[in-house]
C-alpha cells in the first residue's frame, strides 16, 4: 500500500484502453445526470446499471467494491442518518427519536442525496482505478488545457491516496514515539489529534515546494508538451463522448420540457 501513490491498477480491459478524456466525460455526465436528471432514482439506477457493471468490465470490480465499502459507505451512511433525523419539514412520521420525528419524506430525500453522492464519488473512483494519472495529465495538456489546470485536476484526484500514504507515515512516526494508535476508540481518537496538524500543515508546505519542483522541471514552459506514454484516442472514443453529451442534453432537456 505504501508503494501506491494512486488508485490506478494496471489491467488489460476496454475501460483501460479508453481515452482519459472519454472517461472524464463519462464521469461528468454521470454526475450531471445523477444530480439534475429527470427522475430522482436515476442516481441509484446509474450506480447499479452503469458504474458497477463497468467496474467489472474493467476487471477492477473487486477493488472497486472494496474501496466503495471502506471509503464511501461509512460517509454516505452517516449523511443518510443525519439527514433523515435532522432535515426540517413534517410529513408521515415513521418513528420518533427523542424529540425528533423521522418522516418518510425526509428518509426519501436523504436516500436520494446519499445515492447521488455515491454515484459522484464512485464514478471518480472508477476513473482513478482505470486511468494512469500521468496519462490523464498529458492528455489534458495535449488538448491545450493550460498546464496549471491539468496539473491541479490530476493532483486533486490523487490527494486521497497521497494523504493515505502520508497518514500512514506519520502514524508510524507517532507510534515510534510511543503514541497509542491502537486500542480502544478514545485512545485512537486522542492519537489522531497530533496526526491532523502535520497532515494539514505538511500538505500546505508541500504545495509550495512541489510548485517550485515542477517549475524546475519546465512545467510552465510554453512549448508544446509531449508524452512518454502513448495515449490512444480512437474514433470510438470520439463517438462515445459525443453520445454522452447528447444523452446529457436530452435528459436534462426533457426535465425542462416535462415541467
Amino acid at each position, binding site marked *: 500500500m505504501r508503494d501506491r501513490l494512486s488508485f490506478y491498477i494496471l489491467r488489460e480491459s476496454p475501460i483501460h484502453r479508453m481515452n482519459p478524456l472519454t472517461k472524464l466525460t463519462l464521469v461528468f455526465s454521470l454526475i450531471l445526470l445523477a444530480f439534475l436528471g429527470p427522475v430522482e432514482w436515476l442516481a441509484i439506477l446509474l450506480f447499479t446499471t452503469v458504474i458497477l457493471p463497468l467496474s467489472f468490465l474493467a476487471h477492477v470490480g473487486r477493488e472497486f467494491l472494496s474501496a466503495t465499502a471502506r471509503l464511501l459507505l461509512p460517509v454516505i451512511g452517516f449523511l443518510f442518518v443525519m439527514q433523515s433525523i435532522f432535515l426540517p419539514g413534517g410529513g408521515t412520521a415513521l418513528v420518533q427519536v427523542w424529540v425528533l420525528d423521522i418522516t418518510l419524506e425526509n428518509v426519501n430525500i436523504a436516500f436520494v442525496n446519499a445515492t447521488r453522492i455515491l454515484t459522484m464519488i464512485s464514478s471518480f473512483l472508477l476513473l482513478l482505478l482505470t486511468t494512469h494519472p500521468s496519462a490523464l495529465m498529458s492528455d489534458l495538456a495535449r488538448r491545450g488545457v493550460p498546464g496549471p489546470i491539468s496539473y491541479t485536476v490530476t493532483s486533486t484526484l490523487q490527494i486521497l491516496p497521497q494523504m493515505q500514504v502520508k497518514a500512514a507515515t506519520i502514524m508510524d512516526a507517532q507510534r515510534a514515539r510511543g503514541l497509542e494508535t491502537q486500542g480502544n476508540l478514545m485512545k485512537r481518537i486522542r492519537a489522531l489529534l497530533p496526526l491532523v496538524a502535520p497532515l494539514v500543515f505538511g500538505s500546505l508546505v508541500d504545495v509550495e*515546494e*512541489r510548485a517550485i519542483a515542477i517549475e524546475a522541471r519546465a512545467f510552465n514552459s510554453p512549448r508544446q508538451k509531449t508524452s512518454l506514454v502513448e495515449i490512444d484516442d480512437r474514433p470510438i472514443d470520439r463517438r462515445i463522448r459525443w453520445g454522452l453529451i447528447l444523452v446529457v442534453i436530452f435528459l436534462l432537456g426533457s426535465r425542462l420540457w416535462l415541467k
Partner: protein
Amino acid sequence: MAQVTINNLTYTYPLTEEPALREISIEIQAGEFLAVIGANGAGKTTLCYTLSGFIPHFFRGELQGKILIDGLDTANSKLYEIVEKVGLAFQNPFNQISGSKFTVYEEIAFGLENLGLPRDEIRSRVEWILALTGIEDLAERSPYALSGGQQQKVALASILVMKPGVLVLDEPTSQLDPIGTREVFQVIRSLAHSGQTIILAEHKMEWIAEFADRVLVLDKGEIVRLGTPQQVLSDINLLSSGIGLSRYTRVAHRVNQQKLWPKGQRYPISLQEATEAFGRLLSQEGGSKK
C-alpha cells in the same frame, strides 16, 4: 564573456529585516566547477535559488544587483526561460517529486515531456541518465517508495536529464551515506570532466578539495573568501566562520600548535597532500635523529 555573472547582488526575503545575501559579485566561466561553502544559514541555498531564478520569480522579497546567465538577465526573464539554462537540484529531495508520475522512469521523463522532446529522444535520454547515475534498478519503482538517498539520486537524474548549461546542486548528498556520496560525486566528476558548468553547495570538504576549481565561502550572506581549494580550505581562520575543515587540515593544525609544523608551509587539504606533507615531516625528523 563569463557564463554566469553576479553583479553586486543583495537580497532580502519578504518579511525579514536582514539581507540573506549581501553585495555578492562573482563571474563563473563555462566549464568551471565552483564550490560554495558556509555554515548553516550562511546563504548557500539562497544563492542557489538566485542563480536558478526562483529568486525573484518565486520568492519575492527585495533584490538589488544583476544576475546574467548566458547574457540572460534573470530578473527580467520568465522563469521557464531560466529553467532551460539552469538546472537546480534541491537540498530536500522529498518535495522534488512531481507528484503525477507512477514510476521513477516516468518521473525522470517529466521534464523532457514539458520541454516537448519527441518520445524516442525522451526514452534514450532517460535510459542514458539512469545508467549514468546508476539507478537502473529503480526505474520501475514508485518515486514515493524510495529511501532518502535513492530519492536524492532520482532528483539529481531528473535535473541532469534536461541537460542544463549550468548545473546548480544544493547539498546533493545530504541524505546519502558515504557509499552513496561517493557514487554521486563520481557522477558529478564525470560531468565536470565533460565540461559541464557546476555550482555546488556542499559540506563535505574532502570532495570539494578534490573536484572544485574554486571555492567560495559565505558567512552571514557575504563572500568572505574566494580562491582555489588549496588557498581556501587550508585556511584555519575559516573555523571562525563556522566551517568544519577536513580532518587532514585539522590534524596539521594540531601539529602546528605543538610547534612541530614547518614554518610557512600550507596545511594539507586532502589525503594525497596529507600523505606527502606528513611523509616529509617524518623523514626530516628521522634525518635529524641520525
